[in-house]
């Protein structure tokens, strides 16, 4: 008497693998969507090391934030189409004139703008500190800005110490910068 071998069971391992793949894919997709939502809702970077960036100014000068370590840096996001930015334009230029000899650098990052209008804006408000376009919106994405104007204050160690959302006034600018420039 010979035993007939039983037919092989319907490959449960392969079926399990398929299910695992499906659920894994769904979980990965949900994680991706969640991460995207988190980033969108996270708000601006407000503490810790400032995101490094390179700004090519309208005059063709290339400035890297990391190279400014040892100086206090004021990074201002603006645009020529932004009316509230006009309110603070003169203040920022006055601040630059006041603090430039005390180891403070001002950088203007022009957000989602067109160059002729940006240049006209700089000329209209007599802005002399370095300004350049946010090419590819890479800088604004690194700082996770929510709009313009926004101003970021970075201390001599490269740490982000303060964020100002909206137009800044002179007394507020001074109250932030004075403690930072103290030796």
């Amino acid at each position: 008497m010979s035993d007939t071998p039983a037919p092989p069971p319907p490959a449960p391992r392969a079926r399990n693998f398929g299910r695992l793949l499906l659920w894994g894919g769904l979980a990965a997709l949900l994680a991706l969507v969640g991460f995207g939502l988190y980033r969108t809702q996270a708000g601006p970077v407000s503490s810790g090391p400032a995101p490094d960036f390179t700004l090519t100014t309208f005059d063709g000068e290339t400035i890297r934030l990391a190279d400014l370590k040892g100086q206090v840096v004021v990074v201002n996001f603006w645009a020529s189409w932004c009316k509230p930015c006009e309110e603070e334009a003169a203040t920022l230029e006055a601040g630059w004139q006041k603090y430039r000899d005390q180891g403070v650098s001002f950088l203007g990052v022009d957000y989602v703008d067109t160059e002729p209008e940006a240049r006209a804006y700089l000329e209209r408000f007599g802005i002399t500190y370095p300004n350049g376009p946010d090419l590819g919106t890479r800088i604004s994405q690194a700082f996770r800005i929510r709009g313009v104007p926004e101003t970021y204050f970075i201390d001599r160690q490269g740490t982000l110490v303060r964020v100002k959302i909206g137009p800044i006034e002179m007394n507020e600018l001074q109250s932030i910068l004075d403690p930072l420039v103290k030796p």
Partner: protein
Amino acid sequence: MTYHRPSTLPRAALVLFVLAIALASVITSPASPARAQEPTPSDDQVNAVAKQLYCPVCENVPLDVCPTQACAQWRQTIREKLTAGWSEQEIKNFFVEQYGARVLAAPPARGLSLLVYLLPPLAFVVGAYIVYRAVRTWRRAARPVASPPVAEDDYTRRIEEELRRRD
């Protein structure tokens, strides 16, 4: 009476003059409408490019209908580029370089953006398979259980035999 025969020189000059006028009119006449190069692009031409772009400031509003000043500036830039003879693709490349790939209405099919193109058909295929499986299961469940053949039913067989005997 003498017939005044005009000399051939003025006639040749006249023919040359007419030919020159005809040639000039051909050269200076506008080209066919299909190849016309307008000095400034129309709003429709600008909007044909603009509707493929989104300004990051006004999320979810295509550039051709966006009412903000920033978008108006962008449309003006498109107009200038079209006037300068840039192609649609060149203009889109310029905007991507300036403002990032997120300005495109249709993201490029690479990197994470590739998921935008892959997931919908994949979801459709998976969904169709799930529906197929579900329908197959329902059909199996609804199928009536086959009754045993008459000959195998002992009770029926006995009744049939009884009936035959009475006949």
